[in-house]
């Protein structure tokens, strides 16, 4: 018998999709039975009360969580988000219901043993409810009380060699794709770079001093599996400078049907015979591919590394050998100004440890600028819009590059300054009038 009646939540279970309500009910039941004999450190019926307060919020059309709070672990200004219920008498199990963000391992690789240990810890000291994974990638622990925070932090760091992630106005937990660990498209070692920058910028991760949140994401290639181009203030996307490598015999094998296109991903239905013209060449966004008899030709100067042809024929086409990253800045998901994609600021940079150039010539100058000029709660992308791309280019000390232009007139950055113009702003009016009437 459920502690609270939840008719509105129950309705959410009636659709064809998996429901978080069913998950919560299952967890509530599991805690009530407690077959494993866990010595719960927070109320056993926390999940029941969570269902109750959510039902009440639906009924009122308003949240019953207060806004934020002063919780954290000693020395950290992020990783813990205080949540307090505004109806603690009705729902004592969730009177405190703080969130912890756990820094996910690189590429989200972990063993089942590690996952079990985390879950056991969370059953013991928290609500047992997790979110795998939050939007920055963290493993999210939902719901515990203030006295448990230091205990959890101690166990995480001492037993499981595991740190908290970022929250609030600081560097958020850097996120990366699986990269070279499993993916042949990876143009650099995303995990190495992500790990290195996470260690390098511990202070920025744990002690908030930015105007607002700041996210790094690392994609090994333009397929953007962690969506860095749309969801990070600084997006690192693997790319190459030289030519796409072509194995002409394999191209023929795709055409002849010996190798399944897209590695067989679309084999669930009969789409007919593979047609390289229709499915690859005509879909190349820059129109830079063509068949010349039996030879596939690519005009690499025009290729934008969209990855389409490589995705369709991975055994015939391969990323080039001169590899590095493109860095884009200013993407964000909406709050103030609406969604915004990243703008290219560094077309190509090599990725070699210890990554000094990336740190000292890109990341740190951007932070200095944003920390000084950014308004409270202003993301980098908003500052870029407000002060202009030209300002960012100045901050980075790079030359404007046609590749930074999104499209004509969308982000123009050429405003000449007096010292850049021969003769400055002064002109000889008589000389001018010789050619121009009043």
């Amino acid at each position, binding site marked *: 018998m459920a502690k609270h009646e939840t008719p509105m939540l129950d309705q959410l279970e009636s659709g064809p999709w998996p429901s978080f309500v069913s998950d919560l009910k299952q967890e509530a039941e599991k805690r009530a039975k407690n077959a494993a004999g866990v010595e719960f450190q927070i109320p056993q019926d926390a999940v029941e009360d969570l269902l109750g307060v959510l039902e009440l919020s639906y009924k009122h059309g308003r949240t019953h969580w207060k806004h934020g*709070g002063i919780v954290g672990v000693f*020395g950290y200004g992020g990783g813990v988000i205080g949540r307090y219920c505004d109806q603690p008498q009705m729902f004592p199990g969730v009177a405190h219901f703080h969130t912890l963000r756990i820094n996910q391992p690189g590429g989200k690789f972990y063993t089942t043993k590690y996952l079990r240990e985390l879950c056991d810890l969370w059953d013991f000291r928290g609500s047992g409810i997790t979110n795998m994974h939050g939007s920055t990638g963290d493993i999210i622990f939902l719901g515990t009380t203030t006295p448990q925070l230091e205990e959890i932090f101690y166990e995480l760091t001492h037993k499981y060699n595991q740190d908290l992630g970022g929250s609030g106005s600081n560097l958020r937990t850097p996120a990366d794709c699986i990269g070279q660990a499993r993916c042949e498209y990876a143009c650099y070692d995303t995990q190495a770079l992500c790990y290195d920058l996470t260690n390098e910028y511990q202070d920025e991760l744990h002690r908030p001093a930015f105007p607002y949140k700041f996210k790094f994401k690392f994609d090994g290639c333009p397929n953007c599996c962690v969506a860095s181009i749309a969801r990070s203030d600084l997006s690192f996307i693997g790319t190459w400078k030289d030519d796409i490598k072509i194995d002409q015999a394999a191209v023929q094998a795709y055409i002849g049907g010996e190798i399944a296109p897209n590695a067989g991903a679309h084999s669930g239905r009969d789409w007919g015979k593979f047609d390289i013209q229709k499915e690859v060449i005509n879909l190349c966004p820059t129109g830079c591919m063509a068949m010349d008899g039996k030879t596939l030709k690519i005009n690499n100067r025009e290729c934008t590394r969209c990855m389409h042809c490589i995705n369709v024929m991975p055994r015939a086409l391969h990323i080039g050998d001169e590899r590095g990253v493109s860095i884009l800045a200013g993407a964000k998901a909406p709050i103030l100004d609406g969604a915004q994609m990243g703008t290219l600021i560094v077309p190509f940079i090599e990725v070699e440890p210890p990554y000094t150039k990336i740190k000292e010539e890109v990341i740190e100058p951007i932070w*200095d600028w944003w920390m000084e000029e950014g308004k409270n709660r202003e993301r980098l992308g908003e500052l870029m819009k407000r002060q202009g791309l030209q300002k960012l280019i100045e901050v980075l000390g790079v030359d404007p590059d046609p590749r930074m232009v999104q499209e004509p007139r969308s982000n123009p950055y050429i405003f000449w300054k007096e010292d850049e113009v021969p003769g400055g702003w002064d002109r000889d009016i008589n000389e001018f009038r010789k050619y121009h009437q009043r």
Partner: protein
Amino acid sequence: MEYEEAKQLIVEQLTKKLKTKSKFYFNDLSKILDMKPRDAKKIVNKLVEDGVLEYWSSGSTSMYGMPGTGKQAHSEGED
């Protein structure tokens, strides 16, 4: 600026403003200290470590305040 001097300045200024607000953005603190954000951060970190300041977070934004000042109610605009 010496740490002790900075500490005094922060406590003095934040106390003065207590009537109207109890939570401050990092920018407010670096303005009080009249320092570049990176230098101000070193002092602010130490102030937190020493318990002179504490963090407040909504989850998306972080602010600073003096322990024991302001109430949770502040964020709902009731004081």
